[in-house]
């Protein structure tokens, strides 16, 4: 296949990424009209079969590719408005996408990135082997954007966001993804060199460093994907109605209402995606 989208889903005790991936795939398929494949692991597939989502997934996905679950010891807090819960976070195998993708040109997206427009379609033919989103774009704006949302550390590089990545399968991108793997393997060493906090492995940081190295240790003008328009996990997706996503945005300890329609949005509060799952699925029909 020439082009398509790839999603990764490795469930943990708190979040059913596989269920989210079905929604994300349906939205992407509806708005971009390209096939979507899923990369997952045997235990997630078992859960999909048990929870009866596997048959739906088999219809929605072009291919379901089963690989080993990454052995990450990443624990992180998953926010749901004002509350948090800790859970393991298995996302350390993104570099495998180069080997596993069935497409020549791949758009890799996170399962919490909801494609509600055809905006990303204009990037398939851009003359660049690797496109990554270079900026975080908070729904509120710069007021709520911290330095560590835009840089890998207080003294480090500008951060790329691995939420959306598009690449052509060739030698150049093979080297890039091998480099991402290398950064992951030597994460502590790179944290000393690039002065970032290594406690949690972040794909965004590994991708940013790999890009920096591939660009000859400098920042250059190049094509990028659009900013990652985001709603944080302190915010809540409150309601989905008339093709509109209504949010409660946490700002300076109070709540502001906002809505999003026909615009791709990174909804970091995964619990609120699951709570509104049925309505969101209707949006994807």
């Amino acid at each position: 296949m020439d082009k398509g989208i790839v999603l990764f889903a490795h469930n943990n005790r708190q979040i059913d990424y596989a269920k989210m991936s079905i929604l994300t795939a349906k939205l992407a398929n509806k708005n971009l009209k390209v096939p979507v494949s899923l990369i997952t692991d045997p235990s997630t597939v078992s859960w999909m079969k048990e929870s009866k989502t596997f048959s739906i997934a088999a219809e929605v996905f072009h291919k379901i590719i089963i690989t080993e679950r990454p052995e990450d010891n990443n624990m992180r807090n998953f926010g749901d408005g004002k509350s948090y819960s800790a859970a393991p976070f298995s996302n350390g195998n993104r570099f495998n996408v180069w080997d596993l993708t069935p497409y020549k040109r791949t758009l890799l997206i996170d399962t919490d990135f909801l494609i509600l427009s055809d905006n990303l379609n204009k990037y398939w033919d851009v003359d660049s082997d690797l496109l990554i989103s270079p900026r975080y774009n908070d729904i509120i704006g710069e007021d709520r954007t911290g330095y560590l949302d835009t840089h890998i550390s207080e003294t480090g590089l500008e951060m790329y966001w691995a939420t959306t990545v598009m690449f052509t399968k060739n030698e150049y991108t093979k080297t890039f993804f091998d480099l991402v793997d290398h950064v992951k393997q030597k994460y502590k060493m790179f944290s000393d060199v690039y002065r970032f906090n290594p406690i949690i492995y972040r794909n965004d940081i590994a991708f940013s460093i790999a890009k920096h190295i591939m660009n000859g240790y400098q920042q250059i003008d190049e094509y990028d994907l659009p900013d990652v328009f985001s709603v944080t996990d302190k915010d809540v997706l409150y309601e989905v109605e008339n093709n509109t996503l209504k949010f409660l945005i946490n700002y300076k300890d109070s709540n502001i209402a906002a809505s999003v329609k026909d615009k791709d949005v990174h909804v970091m509060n995964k619990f609120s995606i699951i709570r509104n799952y049925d309505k969101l699925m209707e949006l994807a029909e």
Partner: protein
Amino acid sequence: MQEEFKKALDFSNYRQTFAIQRKTLKEKIDAKLTYGYNGGIFKIDRELLNFVEMLIYKDRSENVVILDVNENPILVENLVDFREEIFDRYFSATFEYHEEYQKIKKARSVEKLLEV
């Protein structure tokens, strides 16, 4: 949660919701004014529209090289077709912008703003 949402709909939050809705709308229109062509990316703005129109006026309408957003040279084989495309996109995006912006301006409550 319902109580918090009700509170957020209070008119005292109107300006903040208005600002978010306006920002989101502006970004949506900016995306529509971004045009991928022949491997390059163009921002459809007044400068590009005028430049293309001027080239056609000067009888330079075939095999023209135009610099894109990254200053990369992009070959446009048929500039008249290119002009039609960017003018169509410009008018449809700006018309939508105007229409949606009027709706935002006329929405006199947070609840109405959310429906735009």
